[in-house]
């Protein structure tokens, strides 16, 4: 749809059961963009993000991703037995990047002290920080974030917003479902 877009979606429509969740949703994310998805609870923001990530098949329309993406959602992907250190190590290996940077990532996410605590004993905020640490393991131009500010304290929010603006300055794009304003500086909002 759009020349040079990192990710573009055309005429997406989705049906759940017999209910039309949304239709005719189009968007394009270029380098430096921050697209915020807005809509009431149950409007289908999460479903739209999952479609953009390629997890859910849309009923109509199509998605083109020209670059790899990161995925952060409500369900963080941490196993109860994993620690921040083993979680990031596992994904660094799975993605084929160097595991040597994990200490730096843990440091940046302020997770050095709980780095050896298993996820079942971590607080919600610490789990969220661990998941966000995956964003730093590998440079990927597209970040898909579902309510990324949930469970984060003031420091955490600032940290994440800083990461996002650095990412955009490096030529990345983010697409996020964010509830409320949260001082989020977006280039475009998509209502669904």
């Amino acid at each position, binding site marked *: 749809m759009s020349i040079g877009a990192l990710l573009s979606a055309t005429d997406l429509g989705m*049906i*759940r*059961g*017999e*209910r*039309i969740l949304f239709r005719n949703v189009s968007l394009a994310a270029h380098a430096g963009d921050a697209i915020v998805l807005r809509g009431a609870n149950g409007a289908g923001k999460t479903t739209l993000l999952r479609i953009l990530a390629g997890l859910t098949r849309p009923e109509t329309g199509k998605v083109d991703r020209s670059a790899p993406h990161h995925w952060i959602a409500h369900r963080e992907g941490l196993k109860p037995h994993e620690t921040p250190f083993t979680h990031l190590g596992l994904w660094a290996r799975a993605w084929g990047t160097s595991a040597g940077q994990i200490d730096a990532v843990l440091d940046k996410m302020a997770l050095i002290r709980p780095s050896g605590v298993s996820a079942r004993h971590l607080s919600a905020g610490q789990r969220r920080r661990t998941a966000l640490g995956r964003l730093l393991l590998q440079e990927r131009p597209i970040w898909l974030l579902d309510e990324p500010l949930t469970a984060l304290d003031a420091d955490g929010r600032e940290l994440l917003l800083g990461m996002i603006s650095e990412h955009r300055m490096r030529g990345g794009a983010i697409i996020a479902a964010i509830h409320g304003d949260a001082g989020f500086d977006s280039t475009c909002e998509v209502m669904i």
Partner: protein
Amino acid sequence: MFSWFANPHRFLTLSSWLAPICYALGALLIAWGLWQGLWIVPKDEYQGGDIMRVMFLHVPAAWLAMASYMGMAVMSFIWFIWRHEVADIAAKAIAPLGATWTALCLVTGSIWGKPTWGTWWQWDDARMMSVLFMFFLFLGYMALRGAMDTRQKAARAGAILAMVGAINVPLIKFSVDLFTSLHQDASVITVDGPKMAAVYLWPLLASGLGHSLLFAGLVMTLMQAEIWQRRAAQIRARLIAGD
């Protein structure tokens, strides 16, 4: 060719006259087959006397048990590849009917088995075992569909399971045959094969065809019901959405 049938509207017009014909012809054939089978043809002492007359119910049921599972698997395959909604509706409609005829096959087989084998259930009979596992496959299919939260997911999960089951059926059949061939005794009677007398053949064929037509008619009626149900749900969803 599939695409031509895949239109729900075309299916409704087609089935609105085809289903009644199936019912009428099916009823006639079953009635004639049963009348011939139960009163006219001579009983066969070698096959257990009068009890062999259950054959006119048992053999059609056995045929439909196998045919319906294969039909369900083929419909699932068509749905999985081409996403034709009518194929999924057909697979969904076949499942409970197939399970019913499979159960009928097991019950009549058991009734026939009691006087001839002296037992209600013969573990050594490969056919009984295979049909029993087919019955489980139907139950699993229906339970899985019922457990999914949307009809699209039910269709996908059901199609995967029906196809996995279908490619396993030959292996299950082979293993059961091997299992039973080792401890089979001479009392097992074969009903099929060319040695069957011609007097039985025509009533049996009529019965088989009649049951198939009845089955086809019922499948079409269930499919019609499903299509109307989906349409009603769509209208309801639109009304709620205020569209």
